């Protein structure tokens, strides 16, 4: 616990930790303000595809819809912000030479690496919660409350979630988003234990995420065949909480696969760190 607190204190004392929070706030504010200013245009585009078949009343472009819309950006910029800290948390100790001071102390390497990993997960959770809080609070402030309408173009169906049910659904979706992002954090963390500078882990993690996303979305049979083996395929399982009915089986499967990725990546990092000769 003490080691976890020290690691947390260290990351909270560095300005790079706040870059992510600052940029997320900026992106969300900019997006929501622009959406507010273009509300009429967005609404007509939204309704165009299904206004022939449905009569829709009420506040469609509400805070919940805006939040779901922004959450779709999760797999692009949030991973980058996560790697800023996760990719740096171990490698920075090597770069700055503090790893030598750290590893000659009584706590074992296992405890130190575990504390660092828990801190990485804590930061990742904090970042996604921050995104959720700022999206929802600003969204509700600017766009108000209402039922959530989700248009799943890939499945050709519309989902209506009643206003009263949306907060719980959103909570579950954000919990799933946290879970998804921990895989990115685990990957960056593993690279961080392998490297002696933080640039490599950041670029390496982003390269893997981008390549996997691209490969997973190519509309060719070969790439479709690969898709189940890419963790990025399961990262969007948060969206399933905004579906109706909630596909629990699919959610559990995705959560388990991502969890196994987390365990696997951490165990490799753990093993590498424990065997590593500190020559820097």
């Amino acid at each position, binding site marked *: 616990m*003490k*080691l976890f607190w*020290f690691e947390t*204190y*260290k990351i909270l*004392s*560095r*300005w790079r930790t706040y870059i992510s929070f600052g940029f997320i706030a900026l992106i969300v504010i900019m997006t929501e303000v622009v959406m507010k200013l273009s509300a009429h245009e967005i609404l007509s585009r939204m309704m165009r595809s299904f206004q022939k078949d449905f009569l829709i009343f009420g506040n469609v472009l509400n805070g919940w819809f805006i939040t779901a819309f922004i959450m779709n950006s999760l797999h692009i910029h949030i991973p980058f912000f996560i790697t800023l800290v996760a990719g740096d948390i171990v490698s920075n100790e090597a770069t*700055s*030479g*503090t790893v*030598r*001071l*750290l*590893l*000659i*102390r*009584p*706590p*074992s390497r296992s405890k130190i690496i575990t504390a660092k990993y828990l801190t990485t997960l804590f930061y990742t959770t904090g970042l996604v919660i921050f995104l959720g809080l700022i999206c929802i609070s600003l969204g509700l402030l600017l766009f108000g409350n209402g039922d959530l309408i989700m248009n799943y173009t890939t499945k050709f169906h519309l989902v209506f979630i009643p206003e009263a049910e949306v907060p719980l659904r959103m909570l579950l979706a954000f919990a799933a988003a946290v879970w998804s992002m921990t895989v990115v954090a685990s990957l960056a963390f593993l690279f961080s234990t392998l490297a002696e500078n933080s640039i490599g882990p950041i670029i390496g993690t982003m390269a893997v995420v981008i390549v996997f996303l691209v490969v997973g979305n190519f509309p060719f049979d070969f790439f479709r065949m690969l898709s189940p083996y890419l963790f990025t395929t399961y990262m969007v399982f948060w969206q399933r909480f905004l579906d109706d009915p909630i596909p629990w089986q699919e959610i559990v499967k995705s959560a388990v696969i991502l969890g196994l990725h987390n365990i696997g990546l951490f165990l490799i990092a753990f093993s590498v760190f424990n*065997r590593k*000769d*500190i*020559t820097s």
Partner: protein
Amino acid sequence: MEAYLTKEVVLRTHGLSKKFGKRWAAKDLNLEVYRGDVFCFLGPNGAGKSTTIRMILTLLTPSAGSIEIFGMDLHKHRRAVLSRVCGIVEKADFYLYLSAYKNLEILGSMTRRVQKEEIMEALGMVGLTSRAFEKVKTFSHGMKQRLGIAQALLTKPQLIILDEPTTGLDPQGMKEVRGLIKELASERGITIFLSSHLLSEVELVATRMAVINRGELIAQGFVSDLLDKEPMEYSIQVSPLDSAVELLAKLTWVEILAAEGDKIELRVEPGHASELNRFLVSNHIEVLSFYPHRTLEDFFLKITKGTSEI
């Protein structure tokens, strides 16, 4: 300084070796450090000093051999051993974005619970009290080195391991650090294991020493024994020169190597240095300067009988 020196072995290595690829960075090292020692690990750059220190501090895993500290096997009793040991490897690196105080609090608390007073006391010992709450990134190299010693002292260790502690310091800084090392050993009874590539440093601070070259142990023992084994060369500045040369030529334990201007280069048998000075003065020769010529290179050549390359 030798008040605390006992025959109790604090640190012992058995056949300690480390191989990087095909190269042995340390090979079959058998070291013994006694309680109260200021033990200097001497060798040129790249000799294997840092590798050995890193193995002792668990930063490197030995390829062969074992390390025993306070009678316990280091790898079996790592936590118990390291709670009584502290060190600085190469240079003292800290979290630059944190204050000196916070650095010590974090690092010290990894060993045991440390109180604010203890942190301030450690900072006071190295003269950094007034900078306690400033970020370390504003510190000079010398200040960081002193902070390194403060962090080593904070947990009240019984063995301090310092890897070239005076490297990069100005003469005043070197003097301060050496003074601190002597004080820790003589007044607090802390065993000090330090590495150096400076023979002069060994002579100034160490009680015992081990000499390493190319990963292999060449010699080990009391500094006085090792350094005084061989004749020593001196350069003396005297007046008048001719009379001095004439007088010195009569001494059986002195060999004159050169005499020019007002300087004489000579080789003196071990243990006769002070006698030489007395002899000249009592014979009305004015001794203007008297300094030894002993470089690490000379010393290595002597103890390896010229068979070793540095």
